Each structure stands twice: as structure tokens, then as C-alpha cells.
């Protein structure tokens, strides 16, 4: 499909007086003096039918969750219930963030109830919905931890410990928060090495960030001891919610000793990923950290309305770190989160985890690839062995399925990190396993030549990075 700019580029010149020179494109009378305006704007000018076709065709060159399985380990691509789109599109949801509290009681109630839902699910005492993504949630957690330590006169704590197998965002969020990142090796079984942890912990420890189950899908069995160790040196325990879909109804971060956590709503509560976002990364904390959460949160007012209805209000936590988003986060995503939880309830959420774990175990059982660590929960990491994991992924595309996450965590050589989620049927898992196993039998030449059956064949990453062309203007300069 040609670029929009290859279909048309029209230059509109802007001036307070029409110079009558049509050669330069269309001129427009400006209400402002020329020194306050730009000279021209040059963009594609196309009709609705042309645009409908352009974007329809683009959509046909995308694999989505409605196309087939999407077993991206740690990324948790699950089916997005369609009805949540409808409720997010309700006209009553379209309110401005500066509306008075009295006039947006519906919005405030939904936010309040979602805070409450998430607190129960995570075992947390207080929740903020403001962070617009998981990484933003991590950053809030780090900032809250910093503010807590500072408040307690322990501003000297300057280290955050992160397992080497953790998500890249953990490192980056801690660093953005100004912390030195202490990397923690895994033990032979793929879990936190307690001796190494002991060695890493000190009076400078601000927090330990953990995912549980970890990125190998393994539950950190020593979590209670880990929590004690961290708390003993005065540190806080942070839960990365990326893998919460494995535990719903079986275990709660709060009960395990975590002090602060974020929720990835698209990973756990089925909001669509939208090709990269928007997401939402609410943060839950235990009581002692609640005063530091971002402002505002929502609470029920102690006095109900005259008619006895509850009244909701915004409030700033006592020692709030302030804002991490210009307004109150990704509202439309939060509506979908609320609707998903309200639809499934206790039983549905617990069943989602059970099915996700069963699916991962069943799929693993069918694979010819070696899976070095276990027992795993909702995801597992197979090893491509002599094959290059990235090539394996490219070849799987030829079998009409989306490949797993590859090459990570490094603890497994040529990692194939696989998470089918609860939404795949046995038939689909069998088909997916067949694709894995077909590729496992193929030689490296075949893998390197893959993919063959996709819209685009293997794309040259080196050329893209060496000679960055990041806009159609850059292409035009080329020619």
C-alpha cells in the first residue's frame, strides 16, 4: 500500500493576504498577522472513500488477537471482550477532567469502585489509577518508595535490587527514579538466589522488585522469607504485576508480603493492547505507603447526599508525590478494566488463571523443544537449543501463528518464552504445538530464509538503524 503522501501532498499557504499566486497551492486567509503564523502546511488531502480503503488495507496487513493465537510470554495477549468497547464509548463517559465533582459523580464512582476491586484482587490497602501504563506504574512505585524513605529520614537509601531475569522496565524505572540498580542473579532452579539476595541487601536498599511467578513462570517459593529479608533491612518489596494473570484467586501480592505493586490491565484484565498502547498501570500499596500515592485519589465522602446516596470526591493523599500524568490517566482503558472485572467476578477471574495455567502446562507437554525449568504456571520458557530463537520465531510466522517472545530471559539459551493465556482452546493449542514442532524439525537454512508466506519477507534491521528514515519527508530527501 502506498503511503498517504504518495497518494497526495497538498500545500496550503497561510497568509493574512491572499497573494493570488495559485502555483504555490491553495492560499488561505489568516485571521492572524503573518509573524504569528507559519508559512504553509503540506499534507495529504484525500477523500473519505480513499481513506477508508487506505486504512482498511493497512488493517489487512496486521495479525491481531482475532486472527489467531498470540503466545507472547510475559506480554499476555488475551482475547479482548467486545462489549467493553461499547461501554467505553458511552456518551456519558465523555467528560472533561476539569468538571466539578458534583457533576461527574458517575466517573468518580467508577474510579472508586475500580480502586476497590483492584485492592481486593491484589490484597492492597490503597490504589491509584493514574499511571497510564505498567512502566509508569513501576515509576510511581519507585517514587512512592523514595518519598516514604525520605519521609522517614532514610533518604540515603539509593539502591534498588532487580533480578537479572526481570522485565527491562524494572531496571529503567528504577534508574529514572534516580536509583542505582543492583542486579540479582538467579539460582540453579531459576528463582531468586537467597544468598545473593542476602549479599545484595543493605542499609542502602530502597526496594527489591520482583515478578511472581517470575519470567520463567516459576513461583518464588521463598517469597515469605524474601519479604522478611527485605523488610529486615528496612527495604520495601515491589511486585511487578505482569504475571498476575497466573495467580488470580490463588495468591495475592499483599498476602505474600509485597508493599507496593502495579497492575498491567491489558495483561490481567483483557483491555486491548492497541498495537502498543494505551494501557493502564494502577498501583496498589499497603497502608503505610498510602499517604504518598499520586494525587488525586477518589474516596466516598463520610456524609452521603440528602437522598442517602453515597457521594464521591477527589482528595490528595497527605504526603502525595504529586502527579505522574497531566490528568487522571487512561480513563477509557480504566472503564474497560472495570467492566471486565465486573463481568467475570470472583469465579471468572479464578477460572481465567486456572485455564491460563492449564493451557501453559498442556502446550508445554506437546512441544519437542526442551523446557529446562519448572513447575511453571501461566508461561514457560523453552530453549531452541541449536536453533536461533529469533529465526524460530520468523519461521513460525509461516505457519500462520504468532511466535513466542524470544531470546529472553537469558538464563535459558535461545529462549522461547511462551504464554498461551486462558483464551486458547485445546484445538488451537494443538495447532500451535504442531507449528512449534514443525519448526523444531527444520534446518537452519530454512529458518534463516523465513518468513516466506508473510506480507513482507524478513526485514533488514541493520539497514533500518544505520540509515534511519523515520518520516516520508526523509524518503523524499532520498530521491
Amino acid at each position, binding site marked *: 500500500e502506498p503511503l498517504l503522501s504518495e497518494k497526495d501532498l497538498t500545500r496550503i499557504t497561510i497568509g493574512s493576504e491572499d497573494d493570488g499566486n495559485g502555483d504555490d497551492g491553495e492560499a488561505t486567509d489568516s485571521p492572524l498577522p503573518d509573524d504569528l503564523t507559519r508559512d504553509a*502546511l503540506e499534507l*495529504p488531502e484525500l477523500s473519505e472513500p480513499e481513506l477508508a480503503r487506505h486504512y482498511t488495507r493497512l488493517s489487512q496487513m496486521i495479525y491481531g488477537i482475532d486472527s489467531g493465537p498470540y503466545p507472547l510470554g510475559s506480554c499476555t495477549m488475551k482475547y479482548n471482550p467486545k462489549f467493553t468497547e461499547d461501554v467505553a464509548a458511552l456518551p456519558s463517559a465523555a467528560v472533561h477532567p476539569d468538571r466539578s465533582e458534583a457533576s461527574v459523580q458517575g466517573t468518580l464512582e467508577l474510579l472508586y469502585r475500580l480502586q476497590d476491586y483492584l485492592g481486593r484482587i491484589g490484597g492492597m490497602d490503597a490504589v491509584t489509577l493514574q499511571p497510564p501504563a505498567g512502566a509508569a506504574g513501576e515509576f510511581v512505585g519507585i517514587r512512592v518508595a523514595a518519598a516514604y524513605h525520605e519521609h522517614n529520614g532514610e533518604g540515603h537509601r539509593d539502591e534498588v535490587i532487580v533480578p537479572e531475569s526481570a522485565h527491562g522496565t524494572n531496571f529503567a524505572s528504577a534508574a529514572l527514579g534516580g536509583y542505582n540498580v543492583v542486579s540479582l542473579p538467579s539460582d540453579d532452579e531459576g528463582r531468586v538466589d537467597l544468598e545473593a539476595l542476602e549479599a545484595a541487601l543493605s542499609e542502602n536498599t530502597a526496594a527489591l522488585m520482583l515478578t511472581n511467578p517470575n519470567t520463567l513462570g516459576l513461583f518464588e517459593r521463598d517469597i515469605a522469607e524474601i519479604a522478611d529479608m527485605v523488610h529486615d533491612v528496612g527495604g520495601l518489596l515491589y511486585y511487578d504485576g505482569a504475571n498476575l494473570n497466573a495467580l488470580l484467586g490463588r495468591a495475592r501480592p499483599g498476602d505474600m508480603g509485597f508493599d507496593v505493586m502495579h497492575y498491567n490491565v491489558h495483561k490481567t484484565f483483557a483491555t486491548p493492547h492497541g498495537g502498543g498502547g*494505551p494501557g493502564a498501570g494502577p498501583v496498589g500499596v499497603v497502608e503505610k505507603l498510602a499517604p504518598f500515592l499520586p494525587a488525586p485519589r477518589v474516596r466516598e465522602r463520610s456524609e452521603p447526599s440528602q437522598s442517602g446516596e453515597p457521594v464521591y470526591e477527589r482528595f490528595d493523599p497527605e504526603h502525595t508525590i504529586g502527579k505522574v500524568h497531566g490528568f487522571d490517566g487512561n480513563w477509557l482503558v480504566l472503564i474497560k478494566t472495570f467492566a471486565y472485572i465486573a463481568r467475570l467476578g470472583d469465579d471468572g477471574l479464578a477460572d481465567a488463571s486456572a485455564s491460563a495455567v492449564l493451557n501453559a502446562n498442556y502446550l508445554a507437554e506437546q512441544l519437542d523443544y526442551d523446557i529446562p525449568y519448572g513447575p511453571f504456571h501461566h508461561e514457560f520458557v523453552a530453549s531452541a537449543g541449536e536453533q536461533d530463537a529469533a529465526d524460530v520465531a520468523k519461521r513460525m510466522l509461516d505457519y500462520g501463528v504468532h511466535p513466542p517472545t524470544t531470546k529472553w530471559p537469558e538464563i535459558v539459551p535461545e529462549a522461547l518464552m511462551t504464554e498461551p493465556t486462558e483464551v486458547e482452546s485445546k484445538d488451537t493449542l494443538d495447532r500451535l504445538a504442531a507449528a512449534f514442532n514443525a519448526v523444531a524439525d527444520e534446518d537452519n537454512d530454512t529458518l534463516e530464509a523465513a518468513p516466506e508466506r508473510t506480507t513482507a519477507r524478513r526485514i533488514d534491521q541493520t539497514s533500518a*538503524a544505520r540509515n534511519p528514515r523515520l518520516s516520508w519527508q526523509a524518503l523524499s530527501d532520498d530521491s
Partner: protein
Amino acid sequence: MRGIERRDRSRPPLVMHGSHTTGSPYAPHTAEDRTAMLEAVDAETVEELFDIPAAVRFDGQFDIDARTERETRRLVRSVLGQNDDRTELLGRGHYGYYIPSLVDHLADRSEFLTSYTQYQPEISQGFLQALFEYQSLLVELTGLEIANCSIYDAATALGEAATLADRVRNTSGHRVLVPERMREERKSTLENYVAGTDLVVETYPVDDGNVDLAGLEAAVDEDVVMVYAENPTVRGTIEEQLGAIGDLAADVGAFFALGSDPIALSLLERPADVGADVVVGDASVLGLPTSYGMGLGLFATKEDYLRQVPGRLVGVSEDATDRRAFTLTLQTREQHIRRERATSNICTNQAWVALRTAIHAAVLGPSGMVNLAKRAVTRAEALAERVDDIVGVQAPVHDRRHFREFVAHVDQPASAVAEDLERLGFAVHVVGDHEIQLCVAGVPDEELDRFVEALEEVAR
């Protein structure tokens, strides 16, 4: 032809404990499937697969009721139905422009809505192209060479601009200057973003809505890393001396960060022409309806800083058959590769909103975008003139040109005026004891007529 078999498709839930009687409606397993799968993994029950020590096992209930799809829709409709229906003359960084129907219909196609980040570009060409076109739109609007695929919103984009400035400026400086009048929320977000650095955020004075150039000059020194200004300003005034601000920043080797949005940029001075090093703002002014502050962080900068840019970038390359192909590029800047040395911690961004913005811009075309911007000036100034005729109201407060919104002085207490207007169906900002702010974006003419009548009634 496949034979047709009869199977037991009942779906008893996998869940065992408590009173569970129903499962997830989105997990497709039948009882027969479940039995076969458990057998395959050599387990009696699913619970056996959970390797969780008893001490940290959760045996309680969330006490969240399950509902049918219809009941859930009714619930959300009933909760949100408590929001009062108001004509919003609200702006200050979040706007409710009309979104053409085509935007919803195309962006809601499930291939766009339900796909993941384009880490496998060979099966994601369509989304990559759309994001590439979005980047190109911003390049044209800003005149800067590089635009990323999105930051969360205007405030977080501003935060990222400051950390970018900190990385690329070769000074030992640590001061970030922002106008004394800007949304407090943006400033607070910026402060959180720089909390882990040596940077401090300080304000410079404002003169009748716009930058007080003399005051800024006095504040600028070699210790300054970044100067931030907005156009239009938070009060809707149009800056007249952007070039001079850029020069002040350049003189001390500081970054000039300009806050704006795609509609304003369609008409107002081009950032590249006034020396901007980075442009931030909310691009969802196109593409998203009013959505309680949800946004799309616009982030554009100069080619010089390419390898320090935060967020995802889509570039052009070739595939194995030498055909043009799109791909995420320069990923070594990002957290999943560079971890704590990444240019930002951002991972999930606002890609789908960027798609919507690109489609909305394409529907308008350059003529439509310029027209929308012109109307932002003419309609705001026309409304200011009309309310200025009302007894008890003077507008605009600032003797400047205005874009989309303006501040009006009311003789009555502003909060009382706003409350009275609310009773009559209108929402306005209170920005001072006797100041209200009015925004025309997305408000039809008939509604503005009704508003003028309402203000006449309450302002006297």
C-alpha cells in the same frame, strides 16, 4: 471434508474452591477438553499445577459478583449515567473536538485494536505504516526531523523532554525553567520525572498571559538546561516572541522545549522556525473525544538527538526481496534492550491513539486542519467580544490574540458564576477569584448562543 463429531461442550469451571460455579466466559475449554488436557499433564486437578506454598495461598474471596454481559453493560451505563450532561466550555489542555465517524470505524477494526507492539514487523506492516505516517505528520507540523510513536500525554512528554535535555546538554546545569502560569499538573509531573536527576524546576514570570521576556532573560543563566514555553498558553493567548525565547535558550546552550498541539501547529509559528529543540504536547486533540484527560504525548525533536530520543520509532527498511518495509528501529535505546541505561522507561505507549490522530488528520487534510485552527482564533475572539458586551463581564482579560480559549473577568465571584452556569447546563473553568476561562473547541454555534444568554442571566 472433516467429519462432524458430537462432543460434550458443557463448560464447568476449572475452579475448585469456595462456591465457584461459573468460569470465565472467555476461556473456551469444554469439560471433555479439560479432562484430556489434565490427563496430558498428568494432573488430577488444575489446582495441583499451582506451585504455591500454603503460607501465602489465598483462600478468601474478592467478593466481586459475576454478571452477564448485559448486566455489566447496564451496570456501567447506570454508574456513568450519574454524570450530568453539560455543555463544556472547557479546555486548558484537554479538548472535545468533533471526531469524524470514519476515525472510530477504521481504528476499531480489530486488527488495529487487538494487535501487540510490532516486534514481528513481517506481520505488522499495516500498523507500522500508520505509525510512520503519524510520525511524518508531526515532522511536517513541527518542522523538526524526528517524532516518536508517542508518549503517554503532554505532561509526561514534558518530563521526557527534560531528561532528554539533561542527557544531551553538555553543561553542568541543572535548572529547568517553566512559565509561572501553566497547568500545575504538568509541572508536578515534570517534577516527578526529574526527581531522580540533579534537575530542579523553577518558574519564570508571565506578562499579560504571555512570556515576560525581560523576566525570562533575568532568569536564564549558564546553569539552565531547558526553557519551556507553551503556544498557545494555558490561558489561550498566542505567544508573540517565540523566536526571542528560543534565542535566549540558545545563547546559554539550553534546550528550548515548546508545548503545543497539532491544531495550533497547523496555523501558528512553526517550532523549527523559532529555534525549538523539542516539541511536546497533546496530539490527541485530534483523534480522541473528550475522555477525562486521556491523551497522546506528542514528542518531536532534532535529528541531532536521534539516539537519545525516548519511546518507539518506526523506520523504513527493505525486506529480503528488496521491497520497502517498515519496522521499529533503534530499539537499542529502549528499556527491553538497554535496561537501566535506556533513554526512558516507557514500554506500552499510546500507539492506538496515535493511529486515531493520524486518521483524523487525514480526514481533515491540510485545508481542514488550517481551517480548524483559523476557527479556533475567530470563534474564540468572537465569543470574547460577545461576552465583553455583557454587564458584569470584561473579556478578554489579556490584551493578546487568542486561540480556542480566553479568560474573562466577572464582577461576581467566579465560583458563584460557575455554579450558576452549571445549573443552567454549562461547565466553565474558574481560574481566579473573578476570572473564568471559556473555550470554544467543539462547541457548536447554537450552544455558544445559549451560553451567552446564560452568562447574561448569571453575571449581572
